[in-house]
């Protein structure tokens, strides 16, 4: 998401699932929506069958989604940037790019084209394994079917160059002029039900809610919202430095315990709260297991006994039963940025308590309840109101609890084609008030950066987030605001403009809690955040324009020499993170296969919920590894036989071989939902008695490799190496 936000302002899906009905082409790279987002398929298939849209699926594996594709492109894992820059190169060198769109709304185009020109069809073939003729053919398809949409998921992001991949996808859409239009956009399908909302609330170590960051100004903003003294919050921290310093991430928190890589924090981590999060989703999972025994306190809050409850030998673990989300209420944000109210169905079952109640009891005992709940009397509605009060950056402020409930209760009044209510109590509003929802009467923004509509009716330009002018390395200076004459209908300024500030002296549109600034902007027909260009060059990233870099554990020593990874990063979210020192061209000799992981439709995430469901467990009862026929035959492995898979980092799992040509002969695929077995041994007797999952299996993440994104530190689970032997 960092790559996307750094291109045009916000890191979220730009259009909506329903809007794919208007696509003339669907390009899906690193997504298996048929299993991960099955109900979204109706819109993809609508585009395919009604619009005759080509559905291009780019994936190392012939997935269930690929089975629905018109064009399947098999790509070598971790080479998305090379392929997409190759497409861009083809599009531009044939003159198929949208010149007017680029002139008016894009920055850094010539600089980007220069980099892309390296990726000729032949170079792309060498890196990605995609035939040169296919690169040319797909580029032409995309040029002749507009508007097209680009969809991706974790297959695009879980790489050491994940944030280059996502930027390349964005640039592709800019070059084609597919942004800000119905049927176009970058439609990033998010995973869990509320991953968009939880990201917006910034349950993240680098930001406060609403992407405000960790600078003093951000803290002061939220202190005003919370109605607490800035100095009191400061006094809660070890020192001011740690208030502004990014914390450990989910990907590598355990290094704060194990310290296999050097940490940059004054103390090791000694206690862990794991609240609604699966431990078996971490790559190099054995390290998480090891950390559990070093911690002094582990608190697991979950509706089911998760994988972690069967790990560890120390008496340091508590299991707290929270209710499911059907036993409480609150809002959530779908992948299409839509708010919905999840009404409570029943009271918490057994002795479980809902999340809010557990948090309240904990905070009370830790001694800061009076300050924490200062504005919160009615739960959860007063919390929603506090969120609305402070989260101005992404326009949560108009999505008041009463409005969200009204939408959910009247969902039948919305048109499936436009998502606009036809009459009824929500007349003229878009379903779920897709953010930004700027005011208490704003209808929501169904398509981001759409300059065909007035801002008050859901239109927007690109966000002015990166200054107003830039001088590139080659000396060229460019205005970063949109060109003359390019603005939303009704805008008082006919062209680019910077963000709004000083309407209320000393504040800007993000920090003016009276919201006068936002209202003033809207009344002038303008976007509070300005009207700028999307950028192809991100001068704060190590690769200013996306370039290919080989995965840390690459099967191609020759390409490591040509496209080496980054230098090591000594303080990457408080831990030394290896890049160059981890990239070893010899590794492939012992570990000749590439490992990728993914979902199955019957299970979800770490699988505690779905493997605790007897029906789903019956449908998909077993862990397996997909292995190509030719590979299996060469290794003497029969379909259904047990095999050992080993990673260069020391992890090993014993799983059943599924011999199939869904994967090519270099690749092994593993579903990642299983747990309860570890390195060939069952952990069943370690769960609380009677609460063991119906099905267990080895966790794929025991053998996923070392490797993290250079910007976000997302783990590289889609491009490591492994070896395979019959068990």
């Amino acid at each position, binding site marked *: 998401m960092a790559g996307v936000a750094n291109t045009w302002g916000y890191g979220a899906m730009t259009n909506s699932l329903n809007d794919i009905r208007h696509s003339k082409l669907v390009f899906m790279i690193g997504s298996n929506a048929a299993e991960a987002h*099955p109900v979204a398929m109706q819109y993809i298939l609508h585009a395919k069958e009604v619009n005759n849209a080509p559905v291009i699926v780019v994936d190392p594996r012939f997935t269930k989604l690929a089975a629905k594709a*018109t*064009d*399947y492109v098999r790509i070598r894992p971790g080479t998305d940037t090379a392929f997409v820059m190759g497409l861009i190169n083809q599009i531009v060198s044939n003159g198929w790019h949208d010149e007017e769109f680029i002139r008016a709304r894009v920055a850094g185009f010539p600089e980007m084209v220069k980099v892309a020109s390296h990726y000729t069809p032949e170079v792309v073939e060498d890196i990605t394994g*995609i035939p040169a003729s296919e690169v040319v053919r797909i580029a032409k398809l995309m040029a002749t079917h507009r508007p097209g949409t680009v969809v991706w998921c974790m297959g695009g992001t879980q790489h050491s160059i994940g944030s280059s991949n996502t930027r390349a996808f964005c640039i592709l859409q800019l070059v084609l002029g597919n942004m800000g239009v119905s049927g176009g956009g970058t439609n990033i399908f998010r995973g*869990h039900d*509320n991953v968009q909302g939880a*990201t917006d609330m910034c*349950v*993240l170590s680098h930001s*406060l809610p609403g992407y405000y960051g960790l600078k003093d100004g951000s803290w002061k903003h939220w202190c005003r919202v919370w109605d607490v003294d800035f100095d009191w919050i400061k006094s*809660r921290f070890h020192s001011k430095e*740690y208030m502004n310093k990014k914390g*450990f991430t989910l990907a590598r928190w355990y290094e704060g315990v194990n310290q296999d890589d050097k940490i940059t*924090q004054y*103390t090791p*981590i*000694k*206690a862990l709260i*794991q609240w609604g*999060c699966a431990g078996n989703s*971490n790559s190099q999972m054995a390290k998480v297991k090891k950390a559990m025994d070093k911690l002094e306190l582990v608190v697991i809050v*979950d509706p089911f006994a998760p994988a972690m409850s069967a790990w*560890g030998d120390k008496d340091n*673990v*508590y*299991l707290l*039963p929270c209710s499911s*989300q*059907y*036993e409480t209420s*609150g*809002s959530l944000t*779908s*992948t299409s940025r*839509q708010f919905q*109210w*999840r*009404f409570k*169905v029943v*009271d918490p*079952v*057994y002795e*479980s308590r809902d999340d809010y109640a557990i*948090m309240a009891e904990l905070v009370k*005992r*830790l001694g800061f309840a009076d300050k924490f709940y200062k504005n919160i009397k009615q739960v*959860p509605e007063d*919390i929603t109101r506090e969120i609305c009060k402070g989260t101005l950056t992404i326009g949560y402020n108009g999505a008041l609890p009463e409005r969200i409930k009204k939408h959910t209760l009247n*969902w039948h009044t919305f048109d499936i084609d436009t998502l606009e209510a036809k009459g009824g109590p929500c007349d003229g509003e878009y379903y*779920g008030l897709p953010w930004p929802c700027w005011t208490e009467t704003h209808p929501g923004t169904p398509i981001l950066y759409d300059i065909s509509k007035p801002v008050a009716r859901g239109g927007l330009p690109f966000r002015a987030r990166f200054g107003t002018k830039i001088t590139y390395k080659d000396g060229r200076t460019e205005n970063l605001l949109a060109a003359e004459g390019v603005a939303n209908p009704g805008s008082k300024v006919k062209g680019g403009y910077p963000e709004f500030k000083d309407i209320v002296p000393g504040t800007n549109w993000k920090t003016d809690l009276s919201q006068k600034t936002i209202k003033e902007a809207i009344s002038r027909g303008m976007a509070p955040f300005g009207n700028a260009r999307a950028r192809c060059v991100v001068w704060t990233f190590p690769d200013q324009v996306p370039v290919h870099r080989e995965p840390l554990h690459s099967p191609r020593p020759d390409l490591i020499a040509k496209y080496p990874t980054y230098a090591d990063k000594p303080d990457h979210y408080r831990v030394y993170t290896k890049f160059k020192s981890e990239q070893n061209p010899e590794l492939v000799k012992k570990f000749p296969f590439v490992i990728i992981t993914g979902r199955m439709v*019957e299970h*979800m995430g770490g699988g505690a919920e779905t493997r*605790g469901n007897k*029906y*789903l467990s019956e449908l998909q009862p077993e862990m397996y590894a997909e292995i190509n026929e030719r590979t299996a035959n060469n290794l003497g492995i029969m379909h259904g036989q047990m095999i050992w898979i080993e990673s260069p980092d020391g992890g090993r799992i014993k799983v059943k071989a599924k011999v199939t040509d869904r994967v090519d002969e270099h690749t092994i695929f593993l579903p990642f939902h299983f747990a309860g077995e570890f390195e060939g041994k069952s952990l069943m007797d370690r769960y609380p008695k009677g609460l063991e*999952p119906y099905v267990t299996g080895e966790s794929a993440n025991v053998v996923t490799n070392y490797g993290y994104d250079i910007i*976000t530190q*997302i*783990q590289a689970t889609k491009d490591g190496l492994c070896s395979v032997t019959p068990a």
Partner: protein
Amino acid sequence: MARKKIFNNSIPGKRSRRVTINPRMARRSFLKLSAAAAAVSTAALAPTLTRKVSAQTKAKEPYPGSKKVKTICTYCSVGCGIIAEVQNGVWVRQEVATDHPVSRGGHCCKGAGAIDMVTSEKRLKSPMKRVGGKWQKISWDQALDEIAAKLLEIREQDGPDALHFNGSAKVSNEMAYLQRKFAAFWGSNNIDHQARI
């Protein structure tokens, strides 16, 4: 274009091959076949079928005194609508929401069994603590008192950054917000969740 071909396999060295036939044709032949099958089975099983239909009609009647609650599936980010039927505080049945503007009555196998999230016997039933390697039931008060005391002790000895908090993309916006706010008030940025991975 979509109907004409298609599946272009990009495995080097393999020729492109066509794998789907015209879907219209396929559908038509399927309909013919199923019509024939229906005719046969109706003739043969008519009495059974009649009984089944009436049983079905009865099954569609609401549970006495029940209410219907609109809610949202907890699995993926599509956000499908669910209509839950609740009788005397018990979730007795779920229905698809055919009028939901995104899911339009669609469900995957997980969402179709949303009710099992509440009815599963595998749900954690009370707070537990591991003692001597065995899981032991404890009260909420004991659990929370002990956890809070230990957290305060660690905070005192090692500082607030000795705690790491992994929050969730599976809770409401309000709860996600409270998780982030908790870390802020505790005094650490060591908080993260699934969006990172």
